[in-house]
């Protein structure tokens, strides 16, 4: 019998729960693998998919979202070796799995911590409840490849947002492999969309897009690009998360600020009886 020929993998985009090639047909080489090079149009398609997913995802119960995020951790656990083979250190994979679990737990607790009853001088109940802001564009950090990516995606989606992630150009393999995990985790299509390619190409399209509600610039390292993106984002008053400092410690306790930065507060007044 002849020797078996290995099946080589093409790393494609992740849009609306599917793995399409770039609309432009372009690709680039990373670690001798072909990776799709996303265009502006792919970014637009991803926003359309993310917008379509908002209603179902934000409308799901917090309990259900928590279960699904926990399921992601389970699936990630099963693919541990695959990430290690891509060069992600084993303890980083473990930390990434733990982070999914940690954020999964927050899904039904955050509204209690961050919302609640407000004391008012009158015969009313006054209640504030956090709600997802909508479609969030995320520029993922280059390092750590997996933990950094998880640390920007999980806090955005746990509260009911949907995301379009521009993966780091140098680290697309971990991002696409994470997409494969997400695709098999009961996460509805379109909740997470991942674009690989140049940040300078996709991020400006996302920052200027009028149907994107917030942009997380964590992975932007060039200060002038960050400024440009922030200026574009101002056009429709997107919420903006500024780039992370170069010495940011991703393994530390992340706190809840990444979740609360991507929420809107709804306050209702309700008359009291008697």
């Amino acid at each position: 019998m002849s020797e078996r020929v290995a099946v080589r993998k093409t790393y494609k985009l992740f849009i609306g729960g599917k793995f399409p090639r770039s609309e432009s047909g372009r690709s680039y080489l990373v670690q001798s693998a072909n990776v799709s090079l996303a265009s502006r149009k792919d970014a637009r398609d991803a926003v359309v998919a993310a917008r379509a997913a908002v209603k179902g995802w934000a409308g799901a119960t917090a309990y259900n979202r928590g279960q699904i995020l926990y399921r992601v951790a389970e699936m990630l656990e099963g693919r541990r070796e695959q990430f290690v083979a891509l060069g992600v250190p084993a303890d980083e994979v473990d930390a990434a799995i733990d982070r999914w679990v940690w954020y999964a737990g927050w899904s039904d607790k955050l509204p209690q911590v961050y919302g609640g009853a407000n004391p008012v001088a009158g015969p009313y109940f006054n209640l504030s409840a956090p709600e997802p802001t909508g479609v969030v564009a995320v520029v993922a950090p280059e390092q750590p490849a997996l933990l950094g990516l998880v640390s920007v995606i999980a806090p955005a989606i746990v509260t009911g947002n949907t995301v379009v992630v521009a993966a780091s150009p140098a680290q697309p393999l971990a991002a696409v492999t994470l997409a494969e995990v997400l695709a098999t985790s009961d996460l509805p299509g379109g909740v997470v969309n991942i674009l690989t390619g140049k940040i300078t190409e996709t991020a400006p399209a996302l920052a200027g897009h009028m149907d994107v509600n917030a942009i997380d610039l964590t992975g932007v390292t060039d200060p002038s690009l960050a400024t440009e993106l922030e200026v574009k984002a101002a056009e429709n008053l997107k919420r903006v998360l500024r780039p992370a400092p170069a010495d940011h410690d991703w393994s530390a306790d992340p706190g809840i600020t990444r979740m609360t930065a991507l929420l809107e507060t709804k306050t209702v007044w309700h008359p009291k009886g008697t």
Partner: protein
Amino acid sequence: MTATATSARSDLSGLGRSETALRTFLHGLPGVDQVGAEQRAAQLGTRSIKTTAKAQAIDLAIRMVDLTTLEGADTPGKVRALAAKALRPDPADPSCPHVGAVCVYPAMVPHVAEVLAGSGVHLASVATAFPSGQAPLEVKLADTRAAVAAGADEIDMVINRGAFLSGRFKEVYDEIVATKEACGDAHLKVILETGELATYDNVRRASWLAMLAGGDFIKTSTGKVPVAATLPVTLVMLEAVRDFRDATGRQVGVKPAGGIKTTKDAIKYLVMVNETVGADWLDPDWFRFGASSLLNDLLMQRTKLTTGVYSGPDYFTLD
């Protein structure tokens, strides 16, 4: 590929007089090559239209839109708002053209007429017991006269599919003739409801029947059955109007309706019109889109071209 290359012009005028003559003529039309039509339509859909050509196509498509609302829940306020949108689809940009027409139920015509008076936007009304057409002829004609009297200058009628499918072509023909007469000066669009006609051959026959009976436009669908306008069906109808003009010298318009929701779809139709019947039909007088959500997508794409950033549905009206 002219369907009636052999017919002389004088031959067609007398066809409506007898059931036999109509049947002989309609069944004598060459059959449609189903695979060929679908492949041709798919192929024309692959053209890439960009930048200035796209901008032109979008403006043309906006001018061709029959902005439609045909719901049981339509109110005078809602149709007035729609009519206002027809006049100025993009209030932020005065260079945006107005749409071709507003299309409503007869009861809503007076409310729309107030808004559209003197604007150049046509006022279309469905009639003849839309969408099923299952009513006595007198009722259908009264429906039509009422709509015209209320101010509609275009009437969208439905053909009697029950009669057509059971082969009673003369009955269908006579109803169209009678409706045309009831329209007076108003333009008559004949809805074939291709989703219920089952075959492309039937679509071709119904197209010819509608044109022979005097229809000014042939329209694919009511939008009320699951299968609405498709590219291959529209291709068959475009070929029919082209052949009809060759045979009789009279030009008839085409209106695909239902299911056309994106700019990309609309541009595919425009490409097909240009490639099948030529630039003579690339005008709101001869080609229309029956649509409601299409307009917002056209406006979003138009905004993208003028401002350079992708727009979102939050910035356009909900209809």
